[in-house]
């Protein structure tokens, strides 16, 4: 058990980062900190994927020196998934930031709780 954890330290770090990001996304009041939490969470998943796809002592999946044998290279699919995931998380982050700008222009604060209180007072 402990030995496994040591050899797979990359995955373990990814899990810890995922937890940090997740709790920041939920618990922080500041919207920008929430978004940072979101990004940490997403990046942790990509780190995990990259760790899973890497096979020790093998090359990046681009044909080098004419070696066509698949066993010489690492698994390319996780890298592809990471790229797709990055595109998704960039667009989502952009959307969140634009929402934050709208809220800041309207209420002059980034604190989610304060914004809620102001909206309740406003009525609509």
């Amino acid at each position, binding site marked *: 058990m402990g030995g496994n954890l040591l050899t797979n330290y990359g995955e373990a770090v990814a899990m810890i980062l*995922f937890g940090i990001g997740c709790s920041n996304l939920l618990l922080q009041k500041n919207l920008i900190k929430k978004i940072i939490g979101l990004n940490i969470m997403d990046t942790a*998943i990509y780190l*995990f*994927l990259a760790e899973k796809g890497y096979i020790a002592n093998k090359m990046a999946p681009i044909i080098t020196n004419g070696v066509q044998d698949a066993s010489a290279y690492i698994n390319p699919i996780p890298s592809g998934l990471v790229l797709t995931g990055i595109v998704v998380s960039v667009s989502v982050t952009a959307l*969140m930031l634009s*929402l934050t700008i709208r*809220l800041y222009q309207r209420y002059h604060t980034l604190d989610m709780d304060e914004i809620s209180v102001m*909206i309740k007072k406003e009525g*609509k």
Partner: protein
Amino acid sequence: MLDFVQNFPCFSILLCMFAGIISSALNGKSAKLLNRCVLILITVMSAVLLVYLVGKGESFVYVAGSFPAPWGNELRAGVLEAGMALFFCIIMLLSLLGGGYKLDLELEHGKEKLYYIMINLLMSSLLALIYTNDMFTAYVFVEINTISACGLIMIRQWGRTIEAATRYMIMSLLGSGLLLMGLVFLYGITGHLLMSNIHTQVVQIAATETYRVPLMVTIALICVGLAIKSALFPFHNWLPDAYGYSTVSSAAILSSLVSKGYIFLLIKIIYRVIGFNIIQDSKVINILFVFGLAGMIFGSLSAMKEKDIRRMIAYSSVAQIGYIYMGFGLGTTAGMIASIFHIISHAASKSLLFVSAAGLSDVSGDSTDFFDLTGAAYRNKAAGAAFTVGSLSMVGLPLFAGFISKLLFAQAAAISSSWKMLPTLVVLALSTILNAIYFMKTVVRIYTPVKWNAVLHSKVTIKDNPVTAFALFLFIVLNILLGMCSQPVMNLINSGLHMFA
């Protein structure tokens, strides 16, 4: 050889997506026209596909490109998928028809185009969630669904809607983070991304008991992630504001389609990816069961306290989502069929309620407050009648769709031999009473005669707004059809579930 009809799933997804892209170059009017045409076309295609599949009696796999199974991307269509696509198209079309007149008033000038881009993208992502056979494609379309739903919420730029959109995004992103983590785990232990291939591997893993803990963690991550995204109680705090203050069509679409898309994906994952037996053995469904029951009670309690008619309907959605997850939690095929039927009946009644509530508040000085709506059903007869039908269906009176789903839930609970029988029946009864209290209170309120108030009140007849009246009429017919002729729908669901396995 590939029949031409088998291209229809792929066509409908691509048509919607390209319609969204083309809409960005059009003006509002043409975008609306394009959207309507595409939706009607897809409705027809889904209907043809459904007939074809019922005739054929088995599902088919559509290989995108010419890359065979473990590498390429696949779509898969069975009776249940085609039926859901058809139903989603109809609800989308009726919601847009019913709320269309409001859109012109509520949207800022020049934003109609953006609205229809969002609708098209939303529809294409829903169709892709229904048809896809690839887990990672499903994840990408889940995100597209989230983003376009967020656009639908915040298209009306009020403080409330922007805050609701932010809350919605935070919850949704947490859900998709958990879902993606689950997918990565699943890829890690099975080495596949296509649903059928993952399933073969999962069966082996479960039989040899290797990776028992990772498999449980995966199931938990995926279930909880999708439950958060479909607003299962306690993750519903964004929902009343999002449904209560966005435009009418948005509210109808969000409540009846967006959350249902995620739930349908979860059903697919339960049957096609993990396998029903393995889900039954895991303890995860007990968690869904408990939260479903809690949602049924607390959603209804919050709805009772609400003084705003649209927020009340929104809270009622929380309770109805609870019903669906309770059906999953029973862990029997009967419970699953009841849940799928409830997805359909809830979508039909909830969009009807949102559209008719907007009609009622129109004739009451645009107020959604409960007391201002007194006597509104006399001032707008079509909306009054439609609201009554929707309420009766939600409460579960015979003749309407809601009754059948409640009956199915009760039957499913009664034949399940586990400890879940008693709590289900008790909570079902309690929740029905609570539903009856707040819906009947509203129906009585809108039919209470009141003295004419020239400032607040106005009158709308069917002639003033024939399109909305027509949409409401179709909604009512749909509800009664589902309530009266439930057997064919049940047979479809049954054979669809068989095709899943």
